[in-house]
């Protein structure tokens, strides 16, 4: 069994028509229900749900508080490499971009770690491009082993791997893998990923299945908003989530909300997603699922991040650098995308506390 079978039962254009045909009366009826189905989710992300945003936000706030309490999990990304053999039209690391390439050495990794630990982080997200010869499984495994005594929770966002590779990395101390489909629109996917291993849409689509089979603790899903209609892409993401929850029931899930940001590359967002759209989507996810983790990066602005704390988000990063060695080395010459909220960890902690939440730095321990 794989997600492909579920995926193929749906048709993009039909979904799009359905989502845009939803009426306000249908939204009102869904909001009266105690539990929200995938079909209801489709209703809640429709344009017709916009007038109900405050109502959705209130409910999302309550549900999140019940499940996650008054806490926000803190994490930080650490970019290990920007070498990449893929062409992704929207990404700063894309092979065709003439930027200096860099892969961190052991000494450089440990220097970054020392800095990150000083900031207080205990949950780390390792990020690389896709360069299997230099930054393959053995490099990543080595990096995990190198840092695992310093962090209680290690996640990664790297190229899709095979089940056996995931098992190997879990053995080394890996907790979670984030792998975004970018878009579930196959033709558009091909346009934006014309070259490299990433051009294989279905290999990527099956990645969470391989992770589930490997027994990973957490899988992070998402679509890159801007490539296609965010509503349809989000429906597919939710479909993926529900399938995975049924199939790999011991695994936890998180959703991220990357909106395309200006970067060094040709493609700028095709479909705009407004702040109100993003709030609507976050709340719709929470109403669909009380326990899914919802994560917010520094791509978003200060004002947006300040206000989203109470709306359903459960984890955020602060002062992220998206270039390898960015915390301790030179300027941001090699970054993947520009971050928007540049406030320090201290300022973010303060902002979270002011809203009556506790920033949590440690919420995991490897018992093996």
């Amino acid at each position: 069994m794989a997600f492909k079978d579920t995926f193929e039962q749906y048709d993009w254009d039909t979904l799009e028509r359905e989502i845009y045909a939803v009426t306000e009366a249908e939204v009102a009826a869904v909001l009266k229900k105690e539990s929200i189905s995938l079909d209801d989710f489709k209703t809640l992300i429709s344009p017709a749900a916009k007038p109900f945003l405050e109502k959705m936000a209130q409910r999302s706030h309550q549900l999140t508080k019940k499940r996650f309490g008054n806490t926000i999990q803190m994490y930080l990304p650490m970019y290990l490499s920007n070498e990449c053999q893929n062409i992704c039209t929207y990404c700063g690391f894309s092979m065709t971009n003439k930027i200096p390439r860099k892969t961190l050495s052991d000494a450089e990794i440990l220097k970054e770690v020392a800095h990150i630990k000083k900031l207080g982080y205990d949950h780390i997200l390792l990020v690389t491009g896709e360069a299997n010869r230099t930054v393959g499984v053995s490099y990543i495994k080595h990096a995990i082993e190198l840092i695992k005594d310093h962090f209680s929770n290690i996640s990664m966002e790297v190229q899709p791997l095979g089940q056996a590779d995931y098992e190997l990395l879990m053995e080394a101390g890996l907790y979670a893998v984030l792998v975004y489909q970018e878009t579930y629109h196959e033709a558009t996917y091909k346009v934006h990923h014309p070259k490299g291993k990433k051009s294989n849409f279905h290999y990527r689509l099956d990645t969470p299945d391989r992770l589930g089979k490997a027994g990973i603790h957490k899988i992070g899903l998402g679509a890159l908003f801007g490539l296609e209609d965010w509503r349809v892409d989000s429906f597919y993401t939710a479909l993926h989530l529900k399938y995975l929850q049924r199939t790999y029931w011991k695994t936890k899930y998180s959703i991220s909300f990357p909106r395309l940001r200006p970067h060094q590359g040709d493609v700028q967002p095709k479909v705009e997603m407004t702040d109100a759209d993003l709030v609507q989507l976050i709340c719709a996810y929470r109403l669909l699922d009380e326990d899914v983790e919802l994560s917010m990066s520094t791509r978003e602005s200060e004002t947006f991040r300040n206000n989203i704390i109470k709306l359903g988000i459960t984890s955020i990063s602060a002062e992220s650098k998206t270039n390898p060695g960015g915390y301790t080395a030179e300027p941001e010459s090699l970054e993947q995308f520009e971050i928007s909220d540049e406030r320090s960890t201290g300022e973010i902690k303060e902002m979270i506390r002011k809203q009556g939440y506790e920033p949590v730095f440690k919420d995991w321990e490897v018992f093996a």
Partner: protein
Amino acid sequence: MTDILQIADKTFSSRLFTGTGKFSSSEKMREAILASESELVTVALKRVEVENKSDDMLKSLNAEHINLLPNTSGVRTAKEAVFAAQLAREALETNWMKLEIHPDPRYLLPDPIETLKAAEELVKLGFVVMPYIHADPVLCKRLEDVGVQCVMPLGAPIGSNKGLKTDDFLKIIIEQSNVPVIVDAGIGAPSHAAYAMELGADAVLVNTAIAVAQCPVDMAVAFKMAVAAGRMAYSAKLAPIKEVAEASSPLTSFLN
């Protein structure tokens, strides 16, 4: 009247056990726990920096009457649970362990098979084992057989605040048990806690309902009072509930 609860080598005058999760700050947590007068407070090992004596959470719970009860939240198997318990014993200097094995991260429902396995092993290793389980009367007896010092059946899924959805089974467990029965999980309001105590539970464990309340301190006091009231009602023997009014002209009066 002295009404003391004994579990293993410890005695408790409060029958309200509390937790440390979901509070908006360590100070709020401390205030609420002190106000609850709880003497047994569970703390997730995964949230604690076990090697750091000045860990914020542990520091704020440093009061003479408070016993820390580490829990194994986050583990998925008996093997991981035993490892976690040993780590806790060394770091927190306690052999008390709230055994929680929930491989399902959504509803956090306990795995009965792994829990029984782990309980048996932990008892052999000298732990005071407090297992979080379904309200399953047979499992409770099996756990009793391997030597746990109490059982902690759930009222409803953790954090759901739904109350005692399992009350029919809790009644059987309470009736049959030779070890204290502590109703854990699902208690969302003081009335739920009072009800559990009226049924004859020996104690209740409440976390979310206090931590997430608008005013955690007041809610902690409300729970303290509800637990005491429920216990007192149980001890005073509740009048039986009558399904129908008693007929003023009994059908058998002609016999007299």
